[in-house]
């Protein structure tokens, strides 16, 4: 097939990607959008197979079959609660592919023309692919291991970590310059660059833990796009650059949203600064002593007798206890009694952007009931009962009231303004920020100590019995 025809088909595929992403602007059109995007990918792959450079199809076919099988099995088997680690893993494969493609392309051009004839730009792009791709691959694997609980989820921090990271990055850049200046040794330098970037990928991800994971995943998402862009520069291929840019932009936007929702800078999140500084501020004993009111399922059920409006606030605990279906049943029951039920979703609730929305959608809760923080916050004052399930830091009023708190200034859900607050939680253990939550000790708060799912099921039973 003629090269210009192939490039035209790539342009069509790029447009399909853009249209596909545009249709993600509404849940109703989103399914179609995803199909349009996959159609673009199918077109790009088919057209590439017609390229004249391709001499044999055996290896290609083998790779396509292995990759498709693994991809389908992963996609079909992953539970909705496991979506953060799934996305982390997929990010990693994208980054890994970029490293390999850039490496193979470099070996081919070095073999086909004299090293001096290969342009400096080509080597710069190859080195960039190697660095970004390797950081994405290893960073994503570490994120996956943490989310899957193969590794401890806590931040792993050591003295001088930032210095080591900066040194590694500089080393990778120096090696890239060397690679460009000494093309005859380019393969050796490329290998070194990939090794250094791999260590860097691991080191930049280990200090990120628990509740900071949404930022890490969004950032790795953007890296996987930028890795494709770099490989596009290696191959002089427009569609890699266009598609990679779309993903890069998406990841950057999500990273910004997540950081803003925690009132922290990206650098602060990346250094894993929160969690270790719990020494300042009031201790848990000072906040909680004598003020905690524990309630039973029956007591909580009685609250709903006179309630007209209930807001449910889900957090990561909902995902851990798989309580989404029980919550749907509770919602149905309350609505049958004429109570208005809505859900308040904090942007960083869960372990990735939109995590709670997917879980609640899985349980058939209509997306119209899922309200964003800015939309629902003014309505807490008119809310009779706010039910917090497995959320902690995102409902901690200290963010508003205590300027010395580690989470000071972080936008929170104003749950404390509701008439009555029920907090479903296994214990008084602190959230990721490691600080006590004055909401739990408030006069109008009832603590309902139990596993999320069991608590909701018992509550439903109590409501039916009353």
């Amino acid at each position, binding site marked *: 097939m003629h090269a210009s025809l192939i490039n035209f088909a790539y342009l069509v595929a790029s447009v399909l990607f853009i249209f596909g992403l545009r249709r993600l602007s509404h849940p*109703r059109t989103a399914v179609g959008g995803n199909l349009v995007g996959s159609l673009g990918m199918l077109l790009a*792959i088919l057209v590439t197979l017609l390229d004249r*450079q391709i001499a044999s199809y055996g290896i290609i076919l083998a790779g396509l079959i292995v*990759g498709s099988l693994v991809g389908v099995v*992963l996609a079909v088997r992953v539970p909705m609660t496991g979506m953060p680690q799934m996305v982390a893993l*997929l990010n990693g494969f994208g980054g890994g592919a970029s490293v390999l493609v850039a490496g193979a392309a470099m*070996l081919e051009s070095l073999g086909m023309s004299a090293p001096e004839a290969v342009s400096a730009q080509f080597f710069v792009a190859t080195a960039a692919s190697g660095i970004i791709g390797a950081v994405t691959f290893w960073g994503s694997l570490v994120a996956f291991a943490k989310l899957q609980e193969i590794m401890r989820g806590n931040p792993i921090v050591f003295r001088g970590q930032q210095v080591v990271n900066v040194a590694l990055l500089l080393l990778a850049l120096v090696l890239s310059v060397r690679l460009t200046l000494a093309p005859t040794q380019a393969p050796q330098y490329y290998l070194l660059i990939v090794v250094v970037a791999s260590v860097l990928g691991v080191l930049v991800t280990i200090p990120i833990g628990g509740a900071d994971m949404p930022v890490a995943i969004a950032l790795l998402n953007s890296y996987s796009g930028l890795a494709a862009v770099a490989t596009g520069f290696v191959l002089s291929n427009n569609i890699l650059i266009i598609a990679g840019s779309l993903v890069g932009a*998406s990841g950057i936007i999500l990273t910004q949203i997540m950081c803003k929702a925690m009132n922290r800078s990206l650098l602060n999140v990346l250094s894993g600064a929160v969690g270790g500084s719990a020494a300042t501020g009031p201790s848990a004993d000072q906040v909680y002593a004598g003020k905690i009111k524990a309630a039973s399922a029956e007591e909580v059920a009685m609250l709903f007798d006179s309630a007209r409006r209930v807001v449910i606030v889900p957090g990561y605990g909902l995902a851990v206890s798989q309580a989404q279906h029980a919550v749907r049943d509770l919602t149905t029951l309350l609505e049958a009694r004429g109570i208005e039920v809505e859900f308040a979703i904090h942007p960083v609730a869960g372990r990735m952007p939109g995590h709670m*929305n997917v879980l609640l959608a899985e349980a058939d809760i209509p997306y119209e009931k899922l309200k964003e923080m800015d939309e629902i916050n003014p309505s807490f004052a008119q809310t009779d009962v706010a039910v917090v399930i497995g959320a902690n830091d995102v409902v901690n009023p200290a963010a508003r009231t205590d300027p010395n708190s580690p989470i000071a200034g972080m936008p929170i859900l104003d749950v404390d303004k509701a008439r009555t607050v029920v907090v479903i939680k296994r214990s008084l253990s602190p959230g990721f920020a490691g600080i006590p939550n004055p909401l739990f000790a408030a006069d109008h708060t009832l603590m309902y100590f139990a596993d999320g799912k069991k608590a909701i099921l018992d509550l439903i039973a109590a409501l039916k019995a009353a």
Partner: protein
Amino acid sequence: MECLAASGSEAVVGLLTIFVLAMFVGFEVITKVPPTLHTPLMSGSNAISGITIIGALISAGTRYSALTTILAFVAVAFAMINVVGGFVVTHRMLGMFRRRD
């Protein structure tokens, strides 16, 4: 597919132009995605970043040397996991959002 290997700085500026404009398009389009769809956005855009498969396919088909063929085979498999896994899991998720309509 001709490589940057043989092209000059004008070609690089051409590629940079496409990169910058595509980033702007990306920002415009993605900003309109509502937070409720942020997880499917990530998995779906992830599948699109598997576009690296194109470079992997050419390398795997060219069979320049044993080493490049092995690298390319692994790259095809990796990128395909990214593409297929990403689109299928996104389809699964989005179906859940649509069920009530």
